[in-house]
């Protein structure tokens, strides 16, 4: 049973790991393979700061809220383990700031210690009159992706450095199930007008005195178009660019200026920070995540594709819940093919 995962960002690698962990002992013939033209540190995931935080509103999409929660709980469990540092996983506290009162987010009970900001805390942030404080998690992909890769390699999963041009190409090679984690370029494998780039740019700086994340929100300009500061284990990420429809992956001097000025105004202590580099990437934005099976006719056979893409700016936040959901769908496929006689593994 050959399974090909297309894409080696956080979604592809975690999905591959989830499937491998759950089924390799149940299905002796299981061979998991990863195909990608970009690997860490050159994936979209590598540019993300790594803060676990969903968007403000789930738009009633309870499924995604559940996947977010599963991811947080899964990561929280790993916090105390020796692997945490290698995974790039750690706790971080911080602020979400608003210019007016807003309803509590869907994730208020998922994170730790969620509360409103006190008036004295708001004095730190002139121009913002309302906000939240909570403790969340950081998962730095520069470390997490190599950690996932290591675990996959140890499990015998094979990696291929190539750009897959079509699902057919995989089936023609004898792959039984394709897992489509192609992120931004899923549209090249199968057109999807709902998948659009949401361009982001960040500045990485050296500011180790910053210990909190600060995410500001401007209802008018929309998510992530308002300054944010996210301290990592080595560098601090400054951002606040979200440009739907912009495919340009080059750094923009104008965006750099916007980010720098806005972040320094937000946090004057940043003024002495040393700028290390800029980075731009395309968030694979979609009204909702595409996570579903699809039957594809391939000659006489019914070939299976499981889609798992369109995670926008919350891929890290939702990744494990999605990986588990894909693993469940994969389990159904195995049942249908009568490949597992034992009951589905408990999740």
């Amino acid at each position, binding site marked *: 049973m050959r399974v090909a995962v297309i894409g080696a960002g956080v979604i592809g690698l975690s999905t591959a790991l989830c499937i491998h962990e759950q089924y390799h002992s149940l299905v002796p013939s299981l061979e998991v393979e990863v195909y990608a033209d970009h690997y860490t540190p050159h994936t979209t995931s590598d540019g993300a700061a790594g803060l676990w935080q969903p968007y403000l509103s789930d738009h009633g999409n309870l499924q995604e809220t559940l996947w977010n929660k599963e991811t947080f709980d899964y990561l929280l469990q790993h*916090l*105390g*383990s*020796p692997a*945490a*540092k*290698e995974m*790039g996983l*750690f*706790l*971080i*506290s911080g602020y979400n700031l608003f210019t007016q009162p807003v309803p509590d987010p869907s994730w208020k009970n998922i994170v*730790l*210690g969620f*509360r409103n*900001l*006190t008036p*004295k*805390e708001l004095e*730190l942030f002139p121009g913002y009159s309302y906000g939240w*404080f909570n*403790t969340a998690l*950081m998962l730095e992909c520069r470390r997490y992706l190599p950690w996932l890769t290591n675990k996959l390699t140890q499990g015998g999963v094979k990696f291929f450095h190539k750009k897959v041009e079509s699902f057919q190409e995989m089936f023609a090679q004898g792959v039984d199930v394709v897992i489509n984690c192609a992120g931004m370029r899923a549209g090249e494998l199968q057109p999807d007008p709902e998948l659009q780039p949401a361009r982001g740019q960040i500045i990485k700086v050296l*500011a*180790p*005195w*910053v*210990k*909190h994340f600060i995410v500001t929100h401007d209802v008018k300009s929309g998510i992530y178009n308002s300054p944010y500061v996210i*301290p990592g*284990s*080595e560098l601090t990420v400054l951002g606040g660019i979200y440009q739907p429809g912009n495919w340009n992956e080059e750094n923009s001097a104008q965006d750099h200026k916007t980010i720098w000025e806005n972040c320094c105004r937000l*946090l*004057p*202590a940043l*003024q*002495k*920070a040393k700028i290390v580099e800029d980075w731009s990437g395309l968030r694979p934005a979609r009204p909702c995540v595409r996570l579903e099976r699809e039957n594809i006719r391939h000659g006489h056979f019914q070939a299976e594709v499981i889609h798992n893409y369109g995670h926008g700016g919350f891929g890290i936040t939702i990744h494990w819940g999605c990986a588990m959901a894909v693993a469940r769908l994969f389990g159904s496929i195995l049942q249908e093919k009568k490949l597992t006689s034992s009951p589905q593994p408990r999740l």
Partner: protein
Amino acid sequence: MAAPKVAVVGAGVIGLSTALCITETCPSCSVTVLSDQFSPNTTSDVAAGMLIPHTYPGTPIHVQKQWFKETFTYLFAISNSAEASEAGIHLVSGWQVFKNTPKEELPFWSDVVLGFRPMSEAELQKFPQHRFGQAFTTLKCDCPPYLLWLEKRLKATGVQVYTRKVADLWELHSEYNIIVNCSGIGACQLVGDEKLFPIKGQVLQVHAPWVKNFIRDGDGLTYIYPGIHQVTLGGTREKDIWSLSPDPGTIQDIFDRCCSLEPSLQEAQDIKVKVGLRPSRQSVRLQREVFRQGGLKLPVVHNYGHGAGGFSVHRGTAKEAAYLVRECIAALQGSSSRAKL
């Protein structure tokens, strides 16, 4: 009297901040700092510099609270300015956890720090051996940066700074009109204060930049304080020990205690050991005294004995010391005895 000459003895956080307050409160003074040790070799350099007050049994609580509030407000403004990184001041959030619920659930300083509240059940799950906890955000003063920044500000206002071991305050009487005694644990010898005693503390400084929150056991003995470049792990309290030698067995003990609070510290690198002697006293000695010898008078302002709480109250006590200096000046100017020049 022409520009009163004030000598501040001691260049730890108390000496330097007191000197600075004197320049602000008494701009006509000429201020000189004298010390045998400067950063990075002062007691202050060993301290993590967390703004979490120590309670002095002999000082009224409202006074301690005022000192803390004064200090917090002062540093809060710096932390939110472009000078923050140079001064080494930054906000840090975290948890104080207790194995047994403390008698006093609300410490006197709970409304001075930010966002103080009891920890939630979910937060406490991270600390299986602890049953109760408090979450809050406070400030940290990293040393050496803070002391170096204070020194820089002093020199910018024309304060002279000299390395000099003062064995007796009377040595200074011919050069200075007023002496400010910020000699910390040195006051035992310098002014023979028998109420002052050392409490030796040992800490580890490690490289663990993923630790962004502080964790402190309510017993005050085990703590993890993330600074700009390193995390301070503590600690120990040994009363009446004068030795500055680190104890090797203690290194492992501190490390183990901290790892049980924060397991990821197992991966910490570059472990360094530091030892300091907390200049401990039932109350901070913050008062005027006139030394007399023969027909000579020497006004002295004492500001020492801050024990484990120096950083938390330094600015508040420095300001009070500066007011006492002003009183000394007024007394000298109003006095009918021979003015010293």
